[in-house]
C-alpha cells in the first residue's frame, strides 16, 4: 500500500531521516514509535507529500510521489485522512462546516446528501447532533473526535493519526484507542499512527516500527517488538521515554 525506501531528509545541518524504510500494509494499523523530535512527523509529512525527500522513494498505492507535480500530489492527498495532534479544526466554522468542508471541496454532493454524510460520520465517532456547535464549545476529546469525523468524511483509503493520545487522560486515551480500532474495523482503511505511547500502540497496532536516529530500527508485530533487544525499544517497553544524551 505504502512503501517507503531509504528516505533521507536534512534541514540545514540537521539530519532528521537517515535511510528510513518502512512498509504500511493495506487495511492494517501500523504505528511509528519514536521519542520526541525523532522525525516521526517528518516521515509522515513525506508520505502525504507535504515534504520532498532529499533522496529515497515513497510509493503510495502504486504511485511514486517523486514523479508527481504539485497538482498530482493534491490528488494523492485525497486518498488520505489526517488527524492532527491538536485537532486543527477550523475555529471560525461550526462542526457541520468543518466536517462538510472536504465534501463541498471535492464532491458534487447536494447539501441534503452532505448533511446525511455529516450526521453519519458524527454517529461513527459518538457525537450525533452537535453539528451547530463551535469548536470553542467542545472539550479536547470531543474536538479530537470531530477532527476524526472530518478526516474520514471523504472515506479515505488511508488515515494518519498524529499523536492521537498525547495530552489525554487515561479514560479518554482508551476511548480514542477504541475509536481508532473501531474506525479501522468499520471502514477497513489503512491506518498509520504516530505515537510515543507504547501502551496504546501495543494495544491497537497490527505492526509497530521504531524510528530512532533517522532509521526504522525495529519493525514487526506487537509480540515480536516486545522481544526486541534494541536499547530504545527496551526504554519504551520499560515505560521510560528518555532521549539519548548523545549518539554514543
Amino acid at each position, binding site marked *: 500500500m505504502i512503501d517507503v525506501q531509504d528516505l533521507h531528509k536534512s534541514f540545514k545541518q540537521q539530519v532528521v531521516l537517515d535511510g528510513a524504510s518502512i512498509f504500511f500494509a493495506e487495511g492494517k494499523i501500523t504505528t511509528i514509535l519514536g521519542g520526541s523530535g525523532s522525525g516521526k512527523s517528518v516521515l509522515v509529512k513525506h508520505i*502525504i507529500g*507535504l515534504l520532498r525527500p532529499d533522496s529515497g522513494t515513497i510509493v503510495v498505492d502504486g504511485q511514486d510521489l517523486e514523479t508527481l507535480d504539485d497538482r498530482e500530489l*493534491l*490528488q494523492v*492527498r*485525497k486518498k*488520505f485522512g*489526517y488527524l*492532527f*495532534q*491538536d485537532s*486543527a*479544526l*477550523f*475555529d*471560525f466554522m461550526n462542526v457541520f462546516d468543518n466536517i462538510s*468542508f*472536504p465534501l463541498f*471541496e*471535492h464532491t458534487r454532493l447536494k447539501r441534503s446528501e452532505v448533511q446525511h454524510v455529516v450526521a453519519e460520520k458524527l454517529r461513527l465517532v459518538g457525537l450525533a447532533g452537535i453539528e451547530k456547535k463551535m469548536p470553542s464549545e467542545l472539550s479536547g476529546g470531543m474536538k479530537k473526535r470531530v477532527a476524526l469525523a472530518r478526516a474520514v468524511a471523504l472515506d479515505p483509503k488511508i488515515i494518519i493519526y498524529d499523536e492521537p493520545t498525547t495530552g489525554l487522560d487515561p479514560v479518554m486515551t482508551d476511548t480514542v484507542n477504541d475509536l481508532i480500532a473501531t474506525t479501522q474495523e468499520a471502514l477497513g482503511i489503512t491506518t498509520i499512527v504516530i505515537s510515543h505511547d507504547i501502551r496504546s500502540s501495543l494495544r491497537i497496532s497490527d505492526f509497530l516500527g521504531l524510528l530512532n536516529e533517522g532509521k526504522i530500527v525495529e519493525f514487526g508485530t506487537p509480540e515480536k517488538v516486545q522481544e526486541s533487544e534494541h536499547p530504545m525499544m527496551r526504554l519504551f517497553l520499560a515505560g521510560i521515554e528518555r532521549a539519548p544524551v548523545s549518539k554514543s
Partner: protein
Amino acid sequence: MNYLLAPIAALGRVIITFITETGSILILLFLALRNSLRRPYRFKLILEQMEFIGVNSMGIITLTGFFTGAVFALQTGKVFRLFNAEGYTGMVVGISLVRELAPVLTSLMVAARAGSAIAAKLGTMRVTHQIDALMVMAVDPVNYLIVPRFIATTLVMPVLTAYFDFIGILGSYVVGVVLLGINEGIFVYRIEWMVDVGDISHGLIKSSVFGALIAIISCHKGFYSGGGAEGVGRSTTEAVVLSSISIFVADYVITALVI
C-alpha cells in the same frame, strides 16, 4: 577586530533579510496571481472578504475622511483669507484629497484595520495547524486563503477611496461654507473647475495598487508566521508597519512616474 566587523556583519544581515523577505513576498504574489486564474473560483469568499475589508471599514473611513477634509479646509481657508482668496479653499482641498490624501489615508486605515486582522487570522491558522489541515485535505491554501483576500482588497480600495473623496469634500464643505462663510457657488465651482476625471482616476488607481500591497504583505506575514502567540503578534505588527511604509514608497514612485 570583531567589534570592527560587527557593524558590517549586521548591515549584511539586514540586506540579506531584506532581499529574502522581498523575494518571498514576490513569490507569494506570483502564486496569488497564478491561482487567481485557476479553478476553483471562490466568489463567495471574495464577497465575504469584500464585506469585511470594505463594508466594515466604512465607519472608520467616514470619520477619517470627514475630519481630514474639515481640518484641511479650516487650515487653508484661514490662510487664504489673508489674501482674500478663500474661494480657492475647496479647489485646494479637492485636488489634494483625490490625488493624495484619500488614497494614502484610506490605505493606512485599511492596513491598520484589515491588514492586521488578515495577518492575525492567517498567523493563528498557521500556528494551530489549520493551514496544514487545508493542505492535507488537498485544498491549496493560497487559492483558499490568499487569493480571495488579495482580489477583495484590490477591488474595494478604489471604492473606499472614492467614498473618502466624497466624505472629505463634504467635511471641507461644512467647514468652508457653513463655518467660514465661503460662498457656496464659488466653493463648488472651483472644485469642479480644478478636479477632473484624470485626477480622480489617478487616486483610484493608486489606491488599488496600495490595496494589492496591503493584501500581499499582510497575507505573507500571517501565512509564514511562526513561534506561537508571540510570533503571531509580531507578524501582525510587522504587517501593519511594512504595509504602511510600502504605501508611502509606492505613492512616491507612482506619482513620480505619472507627473
